[in-house]
């Protein structure tokens, strides 16, 4: 039986189509589910992906309004049951706003971290560039990143992606939830711009809950699902592979972002 993943469409989501393509490429079933469908209809899915976009126009804060919809209560229930829940970009902002990430083993809904406007010297927050991700100290606890070794290049494109913690206790526990960190092309983690493009604490790009089944990831792996999407100028092994491809056939093979989608597929097989 193919595992089925619900891709949640909120008003203003805009990465549904490419997210579905990446899930299908990983051998998963993927269906777009609208925010206003019966919340219980979500219970039947094996995993959930909240795609990128500008849900509710980023009103109040990015993700803040979608985080308060009834469907998020269903997601919280399913997350507690261990179902994988993955937010990418605006989806990550929704997970953080809802408290699903970092999550709280005590069960309170206290917000432990937030995604603040990017901090880039002298310029407005919104920024887009290719970044390199490496496993963080918490990678082995997270089902999306367990066993990951090589640096994964993929694009980021956001204005509010700087992970900040609410208090010292959360700051201390952030490393163990840090699944993916920004790095230099050779894989060394790097907090300085432009390698960390937004001023994020600990170079955090992807933060998971304590159980490791919920991941809030700011960069876009679905935009790196085929080699063709990797830019010709990119440094590192993936750039070399891209430069060696001179036909569409050679370039329509899997790209670096698929590593994370396959990890999801493996987790759903068990």
């Amino acid at each position, binding site marked *: 039986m193919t595992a089925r993943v619900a891709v949640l*469409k909120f*008003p*203003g*989501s*805009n*990465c549904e*189509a*490419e997210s579905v*393509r990446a899930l299908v490429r990983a051998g998963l079933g993927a269906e777009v589910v*609208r925010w*206003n469908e019966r919340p219980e209809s979500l219970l039947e899915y094996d995993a959930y992906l909240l795609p*990128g*976009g*500008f849900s*509710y*126009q980023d009103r109040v804060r990015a993700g803040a309004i979608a985080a308060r919809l009834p469907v998020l209560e269903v997601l919280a229930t399913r997350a507690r049951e261990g179902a994988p829940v993955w937010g990418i970009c605006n989806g990550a902002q929704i997970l953080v706003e809802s408290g699903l990430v970092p999550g709280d083993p005590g069960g309170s809904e206290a917000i432990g971290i937030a995604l603040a406007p990017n901090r880039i010297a*002298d*310029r*407005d927050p*919104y*920024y*887009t*560039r290719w970044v390199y991700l490496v496993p963080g100290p918490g990678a082995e606890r997270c089902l999306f990143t367990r066993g990951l070794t090589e640096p994964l290049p993929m*694009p980021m*494109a956001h204005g509010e992606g700087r992970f900040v913690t609410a208090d010292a206790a959360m700051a201390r526990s952030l490393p163990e939830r840090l699944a993916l960190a920004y790095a230099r092309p050779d894989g060394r983690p790097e907090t300085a711009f432009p390698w960390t493009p937004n001023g994020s604490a600990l170079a955090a790009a992807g933060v998971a809950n304590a159980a490791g089944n919920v991941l809030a990831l700011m960069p*876009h792996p*679905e*935009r790196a*699902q085929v080699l*063709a*999407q990797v*830019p*010709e*100028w990119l440094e590192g092994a993936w750039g070399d592979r891209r430069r060696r*491809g*001179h*036909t*569409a*056939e*050679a*370039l*329509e093979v899997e790209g670096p972002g698929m590593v994370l989608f396959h990890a999801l597929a493996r987790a759903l097989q068990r």
Partner: protein
Amino acid sequence: MKLAMMGRTPEEMRTEAGKHGLRLTGEEWRQALAAVGRDLTLPEAFLYDVSWSEHCSYKSSRALLKTHLPPLASHVLLGPGEDAGVVSLGLWGGEEWTLVVAHESHNHPSQVLPVEGAATGVGGIVRDVYCMGADVIGVLDALRFGDPSGPNRERVRGIVRGVVQGVAEYGNALGVPNAGGDVAFHEGFDDNCLVNVVAFGVAPRRRIIRSRVPEAARAEEYALVLVGKPTDATGLGGASFASQILDEEEAAENRGAVQIHDPFLKRVLVEATKDAWRWIEEHQVAVGCKDLGAGGLGGASSELVFAGGFGAEIELEQVPQGLPDLAPHEVLCGETQERFVWAVPKRLAAEFCAIWNERYDLARTYPNAAAAIIGRVTEERVYRCRWHGDLVVDLSAAALETLPQVPRPVAPRSEAGPIADPPPPREDPGGAGWQAWAESRLAAWNASSRAAVYRFYDAEVQGLAFLRPGEAAAGMVRPIPGESLGVAVSVDGNPDYGRLDPYWAGVLAVTEAVRNVVAAGARPLCLTDCLNFGNPEDPVALGELDAALRGMAEACAAIGAFARPEEALPIVSGNVSLYNFSSAGRSIPPSPIVACFGVIDDYGRALTPRLKEAGSYLIVTGARERVWGSTTGDASPTRGRVPKPDLAAEAREIRAVLALAEAGLLRGANDLADGGLLAALFTMATDEERCVGLGARIDLAEFEQTLAAHEFLLSESPGFVLEVDPERIDQVEGHLHAAEVDFATVGLVTPGTAITVLRGDDQLAELDLVRIHARWSRRLESLLYHNRGAGLEGAADARHDARDGASR
């Protein structure tokens, strides 16, 4: 209430209409009344005011367009007359796919309110593509700004920041990638910036929706459905405003004529629209659709029914309204954004509306947004609107489709032109001066890296990007996931050429857009254009439009359609923007801006400028002449000479290079235009962030010795730079000889980060690319980042350099 105009003099008519903010001339009101045969109601007068505006009626340019534009080539499925042009992409995955393209300007609104003006520019152009049934997969923006170092620099810089923010805000939130564009600075745009926007999409051919009520409406009753944002008074008179001279004092009061953008609502509307396309296919019904742009509901709905040979009965009070107490003329002609009007069978209209109202819960997404049945299609070709039962518009097709007749004499420029052909820069920079010369040239406003602009734009959303802004001569997308098809896009137009010679500006806008697409290895399929000119009531300004159109048409004919060279390369959609002219008496540089769309069957075989391997040969094609626009310098040019290439030679060269690319004989290619060989080689040896690690050694002895070295490096005679594997060089040279292409093999790709220029045994210059890159890559940041003071000093330097003959 009617405007009492019958029997009055034209001047009295104008005064009467002017009381209501209407802008047509007395003579035009006379013609409108003659067409209708009675006094007009206020909504009718507004409808004429919009329909007969320059923007909608093309009253000044119509005759010139008709005279010059070539007939459409046979591969064009739909051309002007629809909201967007449609060409076939052939069979992919067992389905015939089409490319749908549209091109417009939003110049005046962007000058007055840069963020909103640019954003609604993007918002409007994507609607033109969506309403044809195509999913928009990219936008391009051609931006022309004033001199960032000139006397108006503070205002110019504010406009730069606002326009870039507007383009980014809309496209990023809508989820439509930025596929390219260009930015040019010229003091002639200080009072009137240009924001040209291009949108393109793809659709299976069977899904294409016409901008007209279908014939099926003769067999069964059709309803008119208005979808989207509730109507308010925003943008009332927007089209008329776009058709006026920009007056500094009037700018403030015209802010009400600028529409307000809402990409968030649009995204929801678009997702619902895609569901509607599926619904249409399931129900196998014929529909018509138009986006609401200039003239609002009145403009779009009357055109939708009249184009199909029908009429309409509309109940204006059924239009969802976002403000209380709107008057019928505001409901009819307000240019509220984010709206579409559909013609669908009445029996299915309620089900159709439910897609938006229920499935997408539109009213809870945006207050009062809805899909609403507002009227019906009639056999009788009359456009009627009622307001709570009162007939407020009752105009026959014959009356409303009458076009205003205005005298628009055309005169050529005086012999000397506005700026006399200048002498070339005197001196060679010489010895150690070369490095500083090259740095100041490449770090000039018009030559420096555009990354500071496009880092605000999402080029990756939808996951279809292959060549992004800054990566190649043209942008390229993979429009159908999983298929090998690539679509290449480029938009071009050099303001300095327009200033020097509008005819050649027209020719070169076409050839450069085509060259960029060919340099990416793609086969040009069609063009779109936007013609940005000054005051058409000035015969010389209209003469500039006439000359540019003639140049474009001759270039299209010379290059030919690639499928059938005997047909002209088709211009399938476009727009004319006139009155780009400030009250201070300054007209913009005549600006024909052309976009080219090309296809490549296997996108993996696309070419990029990036140098690939040390030891490759470098070939320069095209005759080198002593010509340059001052776009290599700053935005306040004092000299320049426009290239005047032989059109037959252009066509031979472009076709020969495409053949080499398609045969897989090239390692890389770049177009040679603004900034000459210096800029072309620099972009091949660097990327946005660093030097590639390869440079070039070129020998000018390969050329006739009529040009000084610096003239050669700056010569903007159109051409290509080709990187060729040494094992293939004989084959490539043989092919170029056989095709009678003017070319020279000028040098080699070398390891390292330098460009070395020799003349025989003499080394003239060794340019350190790392140092140039440091200045080139940061220049525009001074306009777009907060530490904006930092750029002013450097600006003064570059200006000085350009003025004193480019030596330092």
